[in-house]
Each structure stands twice: as C-alpha cells, then as structure tokens.
C-alpha cells in the first residue's frame, strides 16, 4: 500500500434548482492510495458523477459544495480560487470522459487539443517536445500518430476513447478519474478499452478512480470500491470483500441483478422502484422503501444513515447492517 494521494472527507454538495436544493452528494468520505484503483458504483443519478465533478470542482454553476474537504497530497482543494484550481486540474487530477460525450471540440484537431493541455501546464516545452510526448501517449494507448491531424468526427468511438485516455495522461497527473469511460461503446471495444486502461495503470502506476454503473466492470478494474445510493456511500471496502460478503441489501441486489458467465446458474433479481427524489431532506434510511426486508426501525425511519466498520476496512451503512 502506497501513501494516501487523495483524501475526501465528509463531502457535501447540492444543486440549487427551481424546486429547491437537491442534495447530490451527502457526507461522502474515501481515501485513494498511490497506485491503487478505487471504484464508485451505483445506479444512474446516485451522485457518482457529482463526486467526480466535485473533485475537480467542475460542477455546474448552480452546484455548491456546502461542507467537507478534498485533500490532494495534503493540499486542500475546497475553497481554492479558480486560478489555483487551474494548476491542479489535469496536472493533479485528470478525467477520462465518456466517449459518447462530445468531449472533443468538433472544430479543432485532436493533436491540437492535447497539445493545448500540455502547453498550459508545461509552458516551457518546445513544439518538438510536445509532439514527442503526444506520440508517446498515442503509442501507449495504441493509436496511430496520424490521428493527431484528424478532426474528432473522423474517428470511430473506440479511437476517440483511446485518444481521450491519451489526453487524460498528457500531463502525467497524480490521479485519473475514469467517468464511465466505456458506457457508450460496444462490448468488444469496451473490453479493449478496459484492458488498455488496466495496462496503462500498471505501466504508469496511476491512482485511478473508476466510476461505473456496471458492478462487473468495477470488480474487474478496482482494488477498493464504494457503493453509492441516493448521494451517500452505503458500503465501502476492498472489492474482493464486498463481492464475497456483501453486507448492504442494496449491494446484494446490485450483485444479484448482474449475470455471471461462470459458476452456478442463478435467477437474476431485479430492483423494484425508483431511486428517491433528492429534493426533500429525508430522515433515516433512504433505501428502506425499496429494501426487500427492512427491519422495523429501518422502516420507521428511526435510524440515521451512518457507516460502521464491519471488518477491517469494510464499512457498511448502519441501517442495513442492523436489519440485514
């Protein structure tokens, strides 16, 4: 285990909307060690991406970090000015965006867009050095050098995604966030990209935060993981532990809803109901309405949500620990 690179402590973030504040991230804490990969999993709208955006403080204008701290190598990021943040972005933390997103500016060449990032953080580099760096990156992610002079629309989805990985690595960041990097790709390409990411991570010793709704991918990619539900972390710990002994009812349901190719045939379970609206500050366990077998206290919303340590490094929500 390396030293702690990124420490997130009791992070709270909400969106101010017409219908009132929406709490998207509630008391989220986790630690990312050097060279380790950390997974965030949960269904759509559970706040995974909000966490990622808060780390870089790229959230929309109506989003506010109300409390908590984000420390990158001991440096506090919450409350930094925009100019201080700019030096942290990409140089400290970079993001691999979704391929489906228009992460590339359609009217500029790929090479130019990568070059721009390097130029911002390494202003003394010569043109040759920058070109060399991009060629190196393209080599790592398995792209041809000619891609540099192409426009984004001339690339296939997989190529774009590889180029985005190259872009994320361009300034040798300490932490890379991969925000659903394979969601929009077909299964074959998904697998290629995942392997590529894994390879790059091992090669460069990256600290990676992997965000996905696909718990199978998380299992493959990460050392530690956290399960998020309605803005809060409900279970957190080493990935192997969570897969073997899921403690929280939601984690169990997530696992049971994913098919497995190997092992015994089992019936897939589906999760009924919708995630709760985040607008109203609900007391107690936010999962209890969908919980298949909630305890009495849980149902009556008497227990506050709080993580408790079950075994070493394995945390789960108090409510479900006591009921399940």
């Amino acid at each position, binding site marked *: 285990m390396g030293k702690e690179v990124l420490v997130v402590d009791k992070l709270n973030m909400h969106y101010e*909307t017409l219908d009132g504040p929406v709490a998207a991230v509630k008391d989220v804490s986790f630690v990312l060690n050097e060279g380790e990969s950390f997974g965030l999993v949960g269904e759509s709208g559970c706040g995974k991406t909000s966490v990622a955006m808060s780390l870089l403080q790229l959230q929309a204008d109506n989003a506010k970090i109300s409390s908590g701290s984000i420390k990158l190598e001991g440096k506090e990021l919450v409350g930094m000015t925009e100019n201080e943040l700019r030096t942290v972005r990409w140089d400290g933390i970079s993001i691999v965006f979704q391929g489906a997103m228009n992460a590339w500016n359609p009217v500029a060449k790929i090479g130019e867009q990568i070059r721009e990032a390097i130029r911002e953080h390494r202003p003394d580099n010569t043109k040759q050095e920058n070109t060399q760096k991009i060629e190196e990156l393209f080599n790592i992610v398995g792209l041809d050098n000619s891609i540099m002079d192409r426009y984004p629309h001339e690339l296939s989805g997989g190529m774009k995604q590889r180029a985005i990985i190259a872009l994320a690595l361009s300034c040798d960041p300490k932490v890379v966030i991969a925000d659903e990097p394979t969601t929009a790709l077909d299964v074959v390409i998904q697998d290629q990209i995942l392997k590529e990411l894994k390879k790059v991570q091992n090669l460069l010793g990256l600290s990676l935060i992997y965000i996905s709704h696909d718990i199978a991918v998380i299992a493959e990619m990460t050392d530690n993981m956290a399960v998020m539900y309605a803005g809060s972390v409900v279970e957190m710990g080493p990935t192997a532990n969570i897969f073997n002994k899921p403690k929280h009812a939601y984690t169990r349901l997530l696992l049971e809803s994913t098919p497995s190719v190997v092992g015994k045939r089992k019936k897939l379970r589906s999760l009924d109901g919708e995630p709760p609206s985040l607008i109203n500050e609900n007391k107690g366990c936010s999962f209890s309405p969908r919980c298949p077998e909630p305890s009495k206290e849980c149902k009556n919303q008497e227990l506050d949500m709080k993580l408790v340590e079950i075994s070493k490094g394995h945390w789960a929500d108090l409510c479900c620990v006591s009921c399940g």
Partner: protein
Amino acid sequence: MSNNLKEQEELQKQLRKDALRKNWKLFSQSKLGMIGLYIVAFFLFLALLQPFLFITGIWNPAIYDPVVGYDQIKAELLVIECPKEYPTEKYESYSDCPGPGEVNIKKLYMAPDLKVGEYYDTFIQPAPPSKTHLLGTDSLGRDVFSQIMEGSQVAFVLGLLSATLGVGISTILGTIAAFFGGRVDAYLMRQSDLILMLPSLPLLFIISAFAELKVWHLAVVLGVLGGLGGSVITIKSQALQVKVKPYVDSARITGGSKWQILFQHILPNVAPLALLFMVFSVTGAIASESVLSFLGLLNIDMSWGIMIYLSQTDGFIFSGLDFWWLILPAGLAVTFLAGGFYLVGRGLDEVFNPRLRKR
C-alpha cells in the same frame, strides 16, 4: 370506454395546464423578458385607452382626435425690441432674443398697433406639454399624446398581423420543404433566395406606387415578403431536426399518413420556434412601417413614423430639444415597443430552448 376517454382528456388538460404553469415560471425568471412584457403591456394599455377615453366622453374628439383634432392654446407674449448689438445684459447673442415668453416687435406685421412692453395674444403651435395636453400639441394643434396612442394601435395591428401572416406562411413552407425534400425543397429555397435578392426598401416603394398602402395592406405585404424570405430557411432547418426524431419514425411505422405526420408531429414541434420568430418579426414590422412612414411613402393618417416624419419636415428635429415633445416621444415609442417585443422573444427563447436555461 367513454369514461376512460373523458379521463384521458381531463388528464391531458391537466398536463397542458401544468406545462403552461411551468413555462410561465421559467419565463418569469427571466428578468429582461418580464421587463419586455411590461413594456408591451404598457403600450397595449395606451392603445386601448384612447378609444375608451373617446367613448366615455372624457376626451372630446374635436380637440383630441389624433388626425383632425385641434386645440387653441392661447399665450400672452411680451412685446420687446431686440437690441442691435450683442452681448447685452439680457441676451448673450442674437439667437437668445426674443427669449421665452417674448416676441420681437419687428415680427408683428399682423398687429402694427402694439408697442414695446404691451402683451400680444397668440395661439402657440406646437404648444409645450400642459395639464390638458400631457405631451403638448404638434404644429397643427393636435394632441401628441393622442397621436402616440393612435400610433401604438397602428403598431400593434400592423406588427401582429404581419408577423402572424409571415410566420404562418414560413412555418408551413419550411416544414413542407423539410418533410418532402428534393424538388419541393429546392424550389422553395430558390424562391426565398429570390425574395432575399430583392432590395426591400425600393421594392416597397414600387409597391406603394401601385396603390395607396393602408395599414393592413402594408401588413399583408410585409407579412408575405417576410414569410417567403429568410425565415423559411430557418424554420426548415428546425423542421429537419424534428423530422429525424424517433417519434416521427414511430408515427411512420405505425402507419400515420404523410399529412398526419406533418400536422400532428412535425408542425407542433416546430411551433415554439415559430412563435419565437413571430415575436421577433413584430419588431421588424414595426421598424419597417416607421421607416416607410418616415420617408413619407405611406398613406396612413397617423403613426409614430409619420410623427417623426412631420417633425423632421417641419424642421423641428434640428431645433434640438426646444421642441422635445415632438421629437422624443414618437422615436422612443418605436424604440421601446420594438425593444419590448425583442425582450419578450428572448424570454421565450429561454423557455423553449432548454440549452439556454440556467438550471
């Protein structure tokens, strides 16, 4: 079954109401849009106030009619003799004599008996604002405030009529061009090229040479020209985006006829943009009318443009702000009403275009 249908209708009504309320909420969030709405409402109030004042008899048409009304404003002027050399104690240069409330004896050819120091009764036209005439009278003794009201009636009738007509035409043609494509599209596009090629002002002069243009004639001409011109291209590009939406495909697969798809699926989805266009083209129509009136090419009795035209031909515009009530109200009215409609359009844009929303 019928009960079910009724319920569905109720539900749809409710949904529509909700959507309307939500849109209103969004619109009222836009500060500038609300300012625009207030401006438009203010001028609408002025337009409606005038007939009300005439009907209830508060205003006597003989005095306050914007076209044929006449009011004598009597004033007593002190007769003086202007000095031969300047500057004197009272006047700095020759342009300061006679001062306010005074008249030069040399100018009184009509009343030779008057002497310096006596008072001379005269009718002043244009008269400055007073209690009876809030914005004074023009050089023919007509009430300016009443003219402004009449002008805003003209502006509303013309603006709304021509905008509705124009946007109606361009929406239908634009959707048809997008939906049928091919030759129909090519024809319609070249047609709007043709309209765009014609220089608009000279063209309107030629048209005004054919016949005496009344307000509603002009509204039709402006509407048709606007409707066949550039807005077809814009509406078409919007309709093209709607055409490839999945719900249009599903309507086609479930066996909707061409016209049904056109009218039930594509048109309603182009409508918000069309409404937006309409609001913006009101601005254009008001400006066009004012320009034509300003150049003296329209045969309408009264409008803001004509008011400016008259103040210009009578030479008041170069008198500076001494006759401000002849120059400022009409010009500002055109500017503000056009601006008001523009701001309303911008507010609507924020409602209909989700990408423009702040949250």
